[in-house]
């Protein structure tokens, strides 16, 4: 068979990682938001906070579930498709992933059950504590996984001997040169993602005049965060870029589609880079700007792609265009932050329809930014898997055939497409239900005991498979319901 197992494994990993990445980036931000809401409720006893927390926890549960299952796939994919890499890097990557499991995954899983289902089973303080632990777990998880990724980008503290990496200094390997930038950039991206999704959904509810008080609070909080975070993220991104220029100059050259090492490099707004001809087919740019941005000097010398032989260059156009998508999204975010401030000062924040509509669409911006940013950094590393030390071709599983890799690639695409479609559908269902008053929510809420109730009241005492069991009848005022989080009376 002519199928290339390396290419197929790369596509497969890119697909699985991209699919997986959108969930944690959202849940990291959302977990912190829920913890803040729980904290505010604990302090003030204002039911608006509890309402918001209960609602966003439901969203969190769906997204977290999808993140968990797609994450399990990733942890096994190292072994199935990249067994040579696993074997060679096990001395370092193995302990990192294990530390992630014992310090983060268990923490999240252990307290998630209490956060989701335990509001009436534990004291309020313990429930708040659970929310904090889940949020903490997401950060610890991000820490370890970004250590692993950063090390693959800028490996340090190791020595390659007898076919394996051996750790010489744990602190150098863990706190490798690109780690601080990458971690900060990613955590801020997560906060921005959470903020924009919550802001977008709140804006939508405000347009529909639903739960105005709580949603105004939510929108206002998010916009304050965005106002400061979006520009700060640009600054961090700039530092990250300088760090990349120092350690992975080829990647930066690809981001700028700059082939020759030269001074006065223009910032290309549009270009069509071509690896075959080692040049850009078209280019439109602003003179000097790339030199200025990258070296902070009007005439700075920027290394070009041709510093590396053609077979050590990444596919330039992917890196070039992904980078532009990410930056464009970032700029839009800054604009929306500033726009929010202007409207707030003039007192029209909650009534400006175009702005609220715009925020709805901005909910997808952070996801686009994260994915394209991820493409920049991952594709930009090609053909290396461990930068400068191990190529993708050296890392792939020896016994893997193209046919096997294709089979599982198609398999994952089919499985993920089904799960993702359903997940998005149910997410919209949750969003449509919103955070309305308890009575109303009960009417519309799916409970195990009356699976069809949301389809409407006709079914309430009607026929579904479990009707003959105990507890079949009228839900609304049923005492069974006192156990549900939204219905608990105690505030």
């Amino acid at each position: 068979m002519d199928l290339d197992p390396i290419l197929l494994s790369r596509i497969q990993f890119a697909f699985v990682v991209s699919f997986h990445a959108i969930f944690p980036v959202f849940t990291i931000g959302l977990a912190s938001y829920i913890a803040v809401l729980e904290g505010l409720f604990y302090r003030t006893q204002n039911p608006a906070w509890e309402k918001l927390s209960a609602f966003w926890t439901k969203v969190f549960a769906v997204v977290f579930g999808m993140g968990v299952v797609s994450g399990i796939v990733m942890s096994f994919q190292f072994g199935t498709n990249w067994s040579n890499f696993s074997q060679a890097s096990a001395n370092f990557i193995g302990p990192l992933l294990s530390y992630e499991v014992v310090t983060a995954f268990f923490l999240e899983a252990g307290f998630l059950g209490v956060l989701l289902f335990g509001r009436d089973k534990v004291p309020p303080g313990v429930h708040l504590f659970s929310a904090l632990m889940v949020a903490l777990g997401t950060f610890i998880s991000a820490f370890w996984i970004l250590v692993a990724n950063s090390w693959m980008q800028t490996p340090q503290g190791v020595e390659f001997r007898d076919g394996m990496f051996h750790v010489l200094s744990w602190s150098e390997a863990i706190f490798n040169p690109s780690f601080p930038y990458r971690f900060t950039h990613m955590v801020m991206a997560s906060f921005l993602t959470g903020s924009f999704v919550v802001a977008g959904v709140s804006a939508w509810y405000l347009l529909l005049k639903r739960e105005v008080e709580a949603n105004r609070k939510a929108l206002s909080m998010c916009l304050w965060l965005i106002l400061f975070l979006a520009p700060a993220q640009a600054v961090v991104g700039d530092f990250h870029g300088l760090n990349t220029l120092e350690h992975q100059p080829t990647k930066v050259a690809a981001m700028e589609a700059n082939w020759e090492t030269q001074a006065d490099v223009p910032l290309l707004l549009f270009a069509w880079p071509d690896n075959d001809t080692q040049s850009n087919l078209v280019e439109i740019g602003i003179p000097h700007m790339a030199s200025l941005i990258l070296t902070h000097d009007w005439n700075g010398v920027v290394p070009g792609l041709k510093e590396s032989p053609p077979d050590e260059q990444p596919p330039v156009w992917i890196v070039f265009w992904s980078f532009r998508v990410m930056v464009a999204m970032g700029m839009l975010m800054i604009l929306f932050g500033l726009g929010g401030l202007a409207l707030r000062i003039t007192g029209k924040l909650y009534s400006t329809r175009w702005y609220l509509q715009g925020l709805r669409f901005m909910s997808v911006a952070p996801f686009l930014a994260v994915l394209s940013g991820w493409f920049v950094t991952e594709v930009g590393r090609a053909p290396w898997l461990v930068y400068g030390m191990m190529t993708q071709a050296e890392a792939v599983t020896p016994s893997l055939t193209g046919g096997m890799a294709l089979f599982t690639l198609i398999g994952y695409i089919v499985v993920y497409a089904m799960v993702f479609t359903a997940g998005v559908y149910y997410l919209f269902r949750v969003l449509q239900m919103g955070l309305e008053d308890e009575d109303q929510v009960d009417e519309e809420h799916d409970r195990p005991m009356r699976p069809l109730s949301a389809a409407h009241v006709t079914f309430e005492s009607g026929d579904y498979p479990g009707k003959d069991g105990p507890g079949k009848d009228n839900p609304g005022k049923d005492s069974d319901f006192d156990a549900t989080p939204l219905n608990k009376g105690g505030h």
Partner: protein
Amino acid sequence: MAMLDLPLIWAVIIGFGVIMYVLMDGFDLGLGILFPFAPDEQARDVMMNSVAPVWDGNETWLVLGGAGLLAAFPLVYSIFLPALYIGVFLLLAGLIFRGVAFEFRFKARTSRYLWNWAFAGGSMVASFAQGCVVGAYIQGFETQNGVYVGGALDWLTPFTVLTGLGLMAGYALLGSTWLILKSEGYIQEWAYKITRPLLLAVLVVFAIVSVWTPFVDELVRDRWFSTIEVIWIFPALALFCAFQIFRHVGKRSEGMPFVATMGMFGFTYLGLLASRWPYVVPPEYTLWDAASAPESQLFLLLGVLFVIPIVLMYTAWSYWVFRGKVKAGVGYH
């Protein structure tokens, strides 16, 4: 440091992680296997709600097993996973469907039956695949210079199909005895009713595998029939536990059937390990051959010894919070 046999310590830790996984995810996978046969939708709600708050933590032990193997015995990791490539894919696909079913099923209206099937089908496929892994481990792997060189479906043999079905029956038994503990009324009645037939199914597979295994591998045969007679204590204790399950179902005891099932799993597991010890990638590599660098094993050991007790504490606490019967009709959500 030379005193410490790190690979041995790690073998014990990973062995512990694997049995934790088997026992804990075992009963919630088992519920999935029993799902299609449940008396009604109400019973399915109770079954799912009985594990909804804890399944995620249960499954985390599997991830720990994978990551721990990579960290401590990379050779095992990088031979098992390529060798079981297709099986691992099926396992993961199964786990995906059953995992999302927990969230989606309660949010579905007309499509609820699809998520019932996703939960049941996913649990069955995942359990079967895990059982095949056990069989493949007994069978051994074709390797050269520490790299798997066999074909994509070498693991799939009549023997592994049998161990696959055996583990499905075993998990179903864990599921039914868990349900006895967590349910009441007609649902508990049903769980009592199916427990003895399931036990019988497990014992049949247990018997066939016991007879068959020595013929699969010479080394195992030697181990069982000559080297250490003490080893026979494990199957004997497993059978004693099986008898306890039978007896306590008859006595309508609520907790003992589950405890005895866990005991049966534990002793069977020890027996299995004893027949292969100290080979981790049979028939070639022992656990000392497969170990990662000592400094890596030590680096992780320090953290794990400190953190795992804490993990066990809050896991136990979480089970304590959700103790007691799951009432029909009460959604946690």
